């Protein structure tokens, strides 16, 4: 098991290197920060200043050398220069990561729990009114643009606050700029209040597709020969469901969840933009706007590590849950 884990991590490293190198090539060719610098400043900077800027952000180096310097730098904790003066990319990244991680984690957990509940229910009551309703809303949510739904939720949150006369549901930012009474409890409720709407937004898309996946997987298992044999042994429906159907039906969901983490991260960018969070989403948007190569790469590298990490955990979990998978 341990050997398998170590080997999986070792295999991930070359994948990470090749994929970040390709992404690096894409990113350095996706815009010209030096030209931006030269044209967007008033008064126009001198040629010497432009050259100095190009040297500062390593725009004068060949791509391969630049990549090598960057990746080795990252290993030593140096995330490279930003186009913005006085911006420590590493510090920026981890501050924002802490903001985003709560949002992503909360919505993953909620989406997963809801998907299992609704998917399983839908499957055991196949062709019932509830099944049709769940299926219809599943389709609807799959077709719903996250940004549109988020704006609606934001409006609903404002309306809710007006009706109740409270400020519980935060619609702007990840926390209030200041609190009237600054106690740990107030800080906590403020944080939760700001988390509610963005979490619902982000959970929605993966919830819809995971519900459909759970339903299909559950139906397949419920129609399987071994569930029929379990029933033929005299086991009651509930027992068959828990001991025989759920376990086998839900194991593949771990893989699906891990594969969808990248999509959730993309959704977080949109969600954070609408609710004006100062998280990783804002960081990506800003760095793309300013053609900030190293800041973009920092974002992409961290998200790649998160995605690979999730897939690793999913594989290990799968191996533990399904005896057919061997890890040697």
């Amino acid at each position: 098991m341990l050997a398998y884990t170590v080997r999986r991590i070792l295999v991930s490293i070359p994948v990470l290197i090749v994929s970040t190198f390709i992404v690096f090539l894409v990113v350095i060719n996706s815009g010209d920060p030096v030209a931006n610098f030269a044209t967007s400043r008033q008064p126009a900077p001198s040629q010497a200043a432009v050259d100095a800027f190009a040297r500062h952000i390593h725009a004068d180096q060949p791509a391969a050398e630049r990549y090598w310097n960057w990746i080795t730098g990252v290993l030593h904790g140096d995330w490279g220069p930003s186009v913005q003066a006085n911006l420590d990319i590493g510090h920026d990244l981890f501050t924002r990561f802490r903001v985003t991680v709560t949002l992503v984690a909360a919505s993953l957990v909620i989406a997963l729990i809801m998907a299992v509940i609704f998917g399983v229910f839908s499957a055991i009551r196949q062709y019932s009114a509830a099944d049709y309703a769940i299926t219809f809303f599943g389709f609807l949510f799959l077709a719903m643009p996250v940004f549109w739904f988020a704006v609606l939720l934001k409006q609903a949150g404002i309306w809710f606050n007006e009706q109740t006369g409270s400020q519980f549901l935060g619609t702007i930012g990840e926390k209030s700029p200041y609190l009237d009474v600054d106690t740990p409890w107030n800080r906590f409720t403020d944080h939760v209040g700001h988390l509610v709407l963005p979490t619902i937004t982000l959970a929605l898309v993966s919830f819809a597709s995971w519900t459909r996946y759970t339903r299909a997987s559950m139906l397949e298992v419920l129609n399987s020969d071994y569930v029929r044999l379990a029933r033929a042994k005299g086991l009651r429906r509930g027992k068959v469901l828990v001991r025989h159907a759920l376990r086998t039906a839900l194991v593949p969901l771990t893989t699906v969840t891990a594969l969808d983490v990248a999509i959730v991260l993309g959704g977080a960018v949109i969600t954070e933009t609408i609710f004006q969070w100062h998280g990783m989403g804002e960081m990506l948007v800003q760095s793309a706007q300013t053609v900030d190569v190293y800041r973009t790469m920092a974002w992409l590298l961290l998200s790649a590590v998160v995605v690979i990490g999730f897939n690793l955990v999913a594989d290990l979990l799968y191996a533990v849950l399904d005896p057919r998978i061997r890890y040697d």
Partner: protein
Amino acid sequence: MTDTEAPGSAGTHLPPADHEFTVRYRSRTRLVLRRFVRHRAAMVSLVVFVLIVLWAFVGPHLWHYSYQKYTPDNSQAPSWKHPFGTNASGYDAYAQVMRGTQTSLKVAILIALGSTAVGAVWGAVAGFYRGVVDAIMMRVADLVLTLPLFAIALVISSRSGGSWYWIAAVIAGLTWAYVSRVVRSTVLSLREKEFVEAARALGASDPWIIFRHLLPNALGPVIVNATVLVATGILTETALSFVGFGVQPPDTSLGLLVSQAQTAVDTRPWLFYIPGFFIIAIALTINFIGDGLRDAFDPRQQRVRQ
């Protein structure tokens, strides 16, 4: 017992591959169509989707306002003159939604076509040759699959200048790998079938086998996957445009229209809801169409168990 498939007769009585292929193909198409027509949600969706496409592409030629022409009416609620109202600058929202739908559809369809074409050939070649070729090609596809679609699309299309085909190309460049996986697995199972053996025995070239025999038979999963890509495409493009990295003014897309209206949900709700409904309608109908096609190509799911 009427077990007619005597093992000895297997190889000898196969008709020539081509003849066999066309007969089988035609009857199967009819079968698939019949099953699809019976899928009510899919049929209704198909009608709605076709109507939306016609409206978006033919409508602008018949409508008396252009999407980029000011009208003297500012911030008007929907009326006979402006069915979808007007925005704060006086643009006719009906013309704008029509144009936005057209752009978003063009992007989504180009994404589906582009990534399906590239992915299908990529997957078919990998599955057909197997071995080293397969290993290398599929590692490349896996690599593309690990890239976070939205983030990379956002970074690259910041350079697009808002042209719709560039945005489509960027997204298609990141989604073709899904198609290649699907096609490869189908081809792997098909290449051992008798009609491929027969074609090879008759001296058919590799490209001939791939394009005439393998790809047409992988059509079912490919078409189903293409519908998924249209839905993914439209949701990705509108999201990009919403965040400001997609289609740029003066052109417009459904995502851009929603973005411009997001602060006016209370004051001019028609500007916000209508383009949103169109995105949902397109993605929803295409998903239902895909579902109907999936059932039509793979009837096993609906069978009554005995």
